[in-house]
């Protein structure tokens, strides 16, 4: 990296970063403890030390074009060891947030999700949609029909339409942002990595091999429990997606009754669904408890974190409660929570590309990009220096007797 750069520190960017949760970034005095404390940081130009100095110097472009910020799994090994209390993990997190917002398309969505001032609107919109939906389905009648028949509480067809649209919007927007991101990384990291470039698909597969089993996440030390929590949540969510897909397929294509009203035939699906749901909720619960109970360890949490966490947790929680109420025989309870559940689900879908949820996309892409340019090469241990042998002076022996 011997190329000369003209430095024009962006004071505002530094301030924004600080606002975005990197409160202590200026405290760093570049001892590089963080880069080494981090178990998963690559050996050539490791993070987060370099990100810290860039952040201090307000080098916006550097930071937003730096895929390494996504290699960080927020385990806080660096923050706990940092001799200055600069919390590098929080700095990287703040950078990730700003990146998500910067790349969000349509861009207003970014600020809608990211700014606490927008909270009411952000939460209100999906709520309103579902409320209207409910109203026009059966005018807020939570008491019937019994036994519970969600399909008559809110009609399937409108749900299908709205949620499919939302999903499409999310996916399109996400893909769009990620495509830009990939292009950005290519454009702004000339000569990054060594060796020939790999193609997108093989790189992606390589990345997924690493992500799905959380193999790097496992290495995090200070915060091992977060690995477990995330693992549960992640696979719980996958499970739920699968369940939902199957159910939808059953209903729409095979025209079967939903599991809630059908017999033993659907027991496997139920088990899958419930197990996943529990894993999902437990995982999230752990994260929440830790963030609330032990911020020093978990790293302090910004609005951006909370927003996403509560929505996804709400989704899972309300889902479970709905089911429980139904079992408990409280139709009204079931209907009510079902409605709330739908609100959360909608929010989750809509905001996927703009909330912290988007990390599943960005991280995958960043890691894949890293693979494609051959990032993360390991320097071997330099063997012990052994001086050339020479005849031992007799003095040494004499001295020993002194």
């Amino acid at each position, binding site marked *: *990296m011997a190329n*000369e*750069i*003209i430095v024009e520190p962006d*004071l505002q960017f530094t*301030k924004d970063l600080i606002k975005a949760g990197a409160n202590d970034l200026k405290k760093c*005095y570049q001892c590089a403890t963080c880069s080494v404390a981090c178990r998963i940081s690559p050996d050539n130009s490791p993070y987060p030390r370099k990100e810290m100095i860039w952040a201090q110097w307000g080098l916006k472009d550097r930071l937003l074009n730096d895929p390494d910020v996504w290699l960080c799994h927020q385990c806080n090994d660096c923050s706990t060891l940092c001799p200055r209390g600069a919390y590098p993990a929080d700095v990287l997190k703040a950078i990730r947030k700003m990146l998500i917002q910067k790349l969000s398309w349509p861009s207003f969505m970014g600020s809608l999700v990211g700014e606490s001032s927008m909270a009411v609107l952000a939460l209100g919109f999906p709520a309103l949609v579902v409320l209207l939906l409910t109203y026009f389905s059966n005018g807020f009648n939570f008491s019937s029909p019994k036994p519970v028949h969600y399909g008559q509480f809110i009609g399937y067809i409108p749900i299908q339409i709205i949620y499919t649209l939302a999903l499409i919007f999310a996916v399109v927007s996400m893909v769009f942002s990620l495509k830009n991101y990939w292009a950005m990384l290519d454009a702004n990291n000339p000569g990054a990595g060594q060796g020939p470039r790999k193609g997108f698909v093989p790189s992606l597969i390589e990345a997924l091999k690493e992500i799905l089993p959380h193999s790097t996440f496992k290495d995090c030390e200070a915060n091992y429990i977060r690995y477990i929590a995330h693992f549960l949540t992640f696979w719980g969510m996958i499970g739920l997606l699968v369940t939902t897909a199957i159910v939808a397929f059953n209903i729409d294509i095979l025209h079967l009754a939903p599991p809630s009203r059908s017999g033993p035939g659907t027991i496997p699906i139920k088990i899958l669904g419930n197990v996943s749901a529990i894993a999902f909720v437990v995982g999230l619960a752990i994260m929440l408890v830790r963030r609330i109970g032990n911020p020093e360890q978990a790293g302090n949490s910004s609005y951006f974190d909370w927003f996403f966490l509560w929505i996804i947790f709400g989704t899972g929680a309300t889902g479970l409660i709905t089911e429980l109420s139904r079992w408990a025989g409280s139709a009204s309870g079931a209907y009510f929570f079902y409605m709330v559940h739908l609100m959360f689900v909608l929010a989750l879908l809509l905001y996927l590309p703009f909330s912290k949820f988007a990390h599943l996309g960005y991280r995958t892409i960043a890691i894949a990009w890293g693979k494609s340019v051959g990032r993360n090469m390991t320097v071997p241990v330099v063997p012990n220096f052994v001086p050339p042998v020479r005849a031992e002076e007799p003095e040494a022996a004499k001295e020993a007797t*002194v």
Partner: protein
Amino acid sequence: MEPKTGLYIDTGYGIGEALDIEALKGVATDEFKPAVCKAESYWSDPDKIEIIKSDIASEGLKAVVIAGSSPRVYQDVFKFDGVITERINLREHVVWCQPPSHEDTQMLAEDYVRMGLTKVTKYQDKPPFTEETVKSILVIGAGAAGLSAALDAANAGYEVFLVEKEAELGGWANKFSKAFTGEPPYDQLVDSPLKSKIDAVKSNAKIKVFASSRVYAISGAPGMFDAVIRPDGPWIDELNHKQDTWLKVQLARQKQAQEGGTAEAQTEEEKAAAGGWAVGEELALDFPHEKVRVGAVVLAAGWRPEDPAKYESLGYGKYPDVITNVQMEELARNGKIKRPSDGKDVNSIAFLECREENSENPFLNNSYVTCLVTLKQAKYLRESNPNGRAYIFYENMRTPGQYEKFYQTMQDDPGVFLSTGRVLGVSGDGAGLAVEVKDSLLGERLKVKVDMVVLATGMIPVTEDSAVVNLRYRQGPFLPKNPYGFNDSHFICFPYETQRTGIYAAGCVKSPMDFQGAESDATGAALKAIQCAELVSRGEAVHPRAGDQSYPELFVTRCTQCKRCTDECPFGAYDEKPDGTPLPNPTRCRRCAICMGSCPERIISFRDHSVDMIGSMIKSVNVPDEYSEKPRVIVFICENDAYPVVDMAGINRLQYSGFVRFVPLRCLGNINLVWIADALSKGIDGIMLIGCKYGDDYQCHFVKGSELANYRVSKVAETLQRLVLESERIQLFQLSIDEYGKLPDMINGFMDTLSQFDPNPYKGF
């Protein structure tokens, strides 16, 4: 024998077992006939001490000689008022390092008894040197250091004369915008750090202030310095010119000494200067002046900024907006920071606290202070302009101790950008400046565009430019500098010891310091000044022989005006009388007796230490004839380091040749060649000198003693030729105090060398 002596041989510590005590007593009584000669164990026991005391009373002893443990122990116990007390080291120097009950061990012990008893016969009874002395203190410079020195001395009850060349007291504190305090919480800046001190000094009845004045001359000696203080004026140039001429002559002399070439022709003026600074020349006092008598002097003249011209390559002088940190203070004092070139507001500054790409010279004159100043000045900018950007490029951020906290607080400011770096260059277009840096923390060469560049220039001691103290000493007006060019001690253990007794440096003439550092340093200097005044008033020497009441006396009628004593005294104690003979100043003297060694005429002596005394001790050594195969070697050892080395060799029971006889000297520079001649002509086979390391990192407590000894020994060759002896018979060794492990090899090795030669043919003459 005279004086009436009691010899007390200690049989404890295994001495009784290892030696034939009766034979030992025999030697003493037969050859010296002491009034008392007793042998018992552990004379240090209180009841035994009583025995000695009663002997003193009953026998009227004038001298007591204890033959037992090293004089380094029980010094306080073996103390008898009005009685010469001599110690013979039979323990560490004999029985602990030699085989017991051996002929040679016995002979060794007997020789030491002879030497010890001979020594006491050579003591002279002389009262300490006490003249009318004063205890007032002269403090030069009224900056942070000077003010503290003055105030602390006054608060201890001493009269103080405070001389300041500026009209105002306070020195640089008056020119600075703000200063860091070094007080908790360590991250604050204060406006005028010295205000309260200045007021205290002004209102202190014991302090007389001479503002806008300088010291024209200091003559005399500790306890009786005469300082001529005169209001500042153009005359200072004339004085500096004098000094320069003097320096020029000195350098020419040195050159001549080194190259042996002839010094270039001298002007009348130079000839005068060559004569020496104080000699002959009368003070021209035909100008307003005040003469004060003081006991000691504190030199706290402070510093001036390093000449920034050497930073031309960094754009200084080329671009008006490249300024020094001192100029930056001025800018900051005028409120909002404006650019020198066009008076525009300054939005960005690059502070360069690092060297140029290929400059290798260490910036000695920066120390940690300029780092702190740089951080401080970054704060100036940030306070003057909320959007201002301060770039700080450093090589190593040096904020020692609690100052780390000041560094942290400056880091926290988002407008301060810190990075390591080596400056590649400073360039400018009309609009502004650009600084290029390599080895930055950003991992590459980088370039910043700034409105202004501030260079962290160093602090040069003002003693660089003139002597300031203007001593009227034979050895010149200057306070000698340490190898780093500062008016500071070169001793780690004795930070106040200069080469001019009674004159103590403080503050930035010693090394760059912050206010707090300079103040505490000055308090120490004040103490040393007071201490010196007190000691000389009691006729005692100052460090390192504090308390020594002996002093050099000259039998001038035999003096040949060879000037060696005046030249070689490390402390400039000797001036010169018009007739060219040396004029001793006993209160300047540190009692190292280097002059005693330097004098070919042997006319310099102390009451308890003289050429005759050592010579007689050597002559008292019994030299067996050449057929006995018992060579004899005299080992001159410095009593400060080499003597403890021998003791520790004994303590560790290291064994070595029993043919050596140790003769302790006050300093190896104390060696007088006549002793070597005496020894050789008496049949002594070889001579070793063991002293401390010399050179840049010398360890000699008297600065150049061991070096001088080496020089003299190199000159002894012709003596040897005269006697037709091999030059290897005389060798000088450097030994550190902790290298006792090397002593046996050193001695035995020397004995091996001797064994290649015939015995000294002069035996028995």
